[in-house]
């Protein structure tokens, strides 16, 4: 069954409509990806699911429960975790403090110690850096820290917004491997990515967002072979 169901969402920035009648399902245990050019509305969609932006109409349900009126922190408690674009670490806190803040919700607090060890096992670089100020990490390490912080929240749905942004190609590959293995461990993932090739290869299902509308949907492989996709990106 679908873990997340978005139905006929319309979102506005002031007077400007950013999302039009978005319909989307994310299946449990799958890796779903949303691709699309800059300013297509991908981040807006994730922020709406997180509750940071409010839809003007439409509904969102998670695990069968309507969540569109819950404030962001209640959604986090339900397990909807977003790793935002630009990572948004707490720059003046140590890596470990950042990770601990990931375990802010009551349930995550109980398993904080245990999860911290798990995160360090998956992302050993964080253990080496745990006393370091998050702001002083390299871009790749910051992204790992953000992923680790997300895992500390014990996500049922982990949403990643442009995790490859500003990273060197080798780091990008490593990071995608990490994301894939998190998914294989059983966490449902919703990935927003500009790096279309990687994202589609990994994805079970994918959506293409253009100008606030979903224009294509299908399995990752199907979309990878779609000529329209290239046109959407390069206008050729």
């Amino acid at each position: 069954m679908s873990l997340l169901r978005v139905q006929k969402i319309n979102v506005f920035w002031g007077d400007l409509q950013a999302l039009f009648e978005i319909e989307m399902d994310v299946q449990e245990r799958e890796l779903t990806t949303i691709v699309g050019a800059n300013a297509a509305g991908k981040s807006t969609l994730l922020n709406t699911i997180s509750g940071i932006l409010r839809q003007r109409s439409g509904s969102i349900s998670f695990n069968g429960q309507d969540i569109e009126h819950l404030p962001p922190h209640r959604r986090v408690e339900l397990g909807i975790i977003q790793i935002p674009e630009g990572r948004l670490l707490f720059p003046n806190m140590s890596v470990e403090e950042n990770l601990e803040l990931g375990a802010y919700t009551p349930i995550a607090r109980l398993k904080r110690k245990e999860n911290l060890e798990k995160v360090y096992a998956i992302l050993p670089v964080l253990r080496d850096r745990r006393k370091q100020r998050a702001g002083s990490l390299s871009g790749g390490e910051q992204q790992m820290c953000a992923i680790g912080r997300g895992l500390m929240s014990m996500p049922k749905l982990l949403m990643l917004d442009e995790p490859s942004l500003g990273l060197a190609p080798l780091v990008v590959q490593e990071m995608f491997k990490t994301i894939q293995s998190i998914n294989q461990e059983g966490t449902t993932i919703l990935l927003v990515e500009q790096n279309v090739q990687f994202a589609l290869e990994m994805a079970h299902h994918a959506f293409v967002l253009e100008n606030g509308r979903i224009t294509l949907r299908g399995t990752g492989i199907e979309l990878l072979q779609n000529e329209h996709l290239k046109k959407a990106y390069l206008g050729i």
Partner: protein
Amino acid sequence: MIIEAKDVTKRFGGLLALQKVSFRINNNEILGLIGPNGAGKTTLFNTITGFLRPEEGSILFEGKEIVGKRPFDLCHLGIARTFQLVKPFSNMTVLQNAIVGSLNRTNSVREAKERAIDQLHFVGLHDKRNVLANALTINQRKRLEIARALCTRPKLLLLDEVMGGLTPSEIHDMLNLIIKIRELGITLFVIEHIMSAIMSLCDRIIVLHHGQNIAEGKPSEVGVNPKVIKAYLGKEYVVTQSPKN
């Protein structure tokens, strides 16, 4: 050639936002500027228009060095711009917004008003002239930005994503508007994300990636440039897709 930039470098703390960017724009040309998020496009606009001062490099406008000049000085010289996130004077009417631009070339409000009305006709906002700017739709706001900039009588106009957030038919109209602006003899430098639009519009395109100018040329050339495809779609896309083309 109206403007020529050489080795423009801009740092923010440790981050190199622009690395030795060089380019030139010919008279009455439409030059496109594209690149993925965070490539430094708006930073480049800000350095050309005097909002940021580059650490290194020179920018010649009609043969004169303009690095170090302030935005309003540059506006007097004939460089105007729009902003990616539009900046209307919200509590002024559309006409008053445009008058502020016209006053760049005159001290008389009456004269300024005449020019403002002409430019509002030109962009199709004349009907809205007595409405407060904060009551406009996004499409109208983008047009107001353009009208206001045209009121200053620019020789070079920099457009920062004037098509972002518009519907396809609005984009079509906007493309026509930009072509009409060029017919007035104005040179245009355009940042745009909507590829199909920019490809059909521009005479030439330059591509920024991580603050570097990675490609330059006709739209048809840039579109098939492996470096550009890689910058946009990721490394392996080229490998698997390009043999088919």
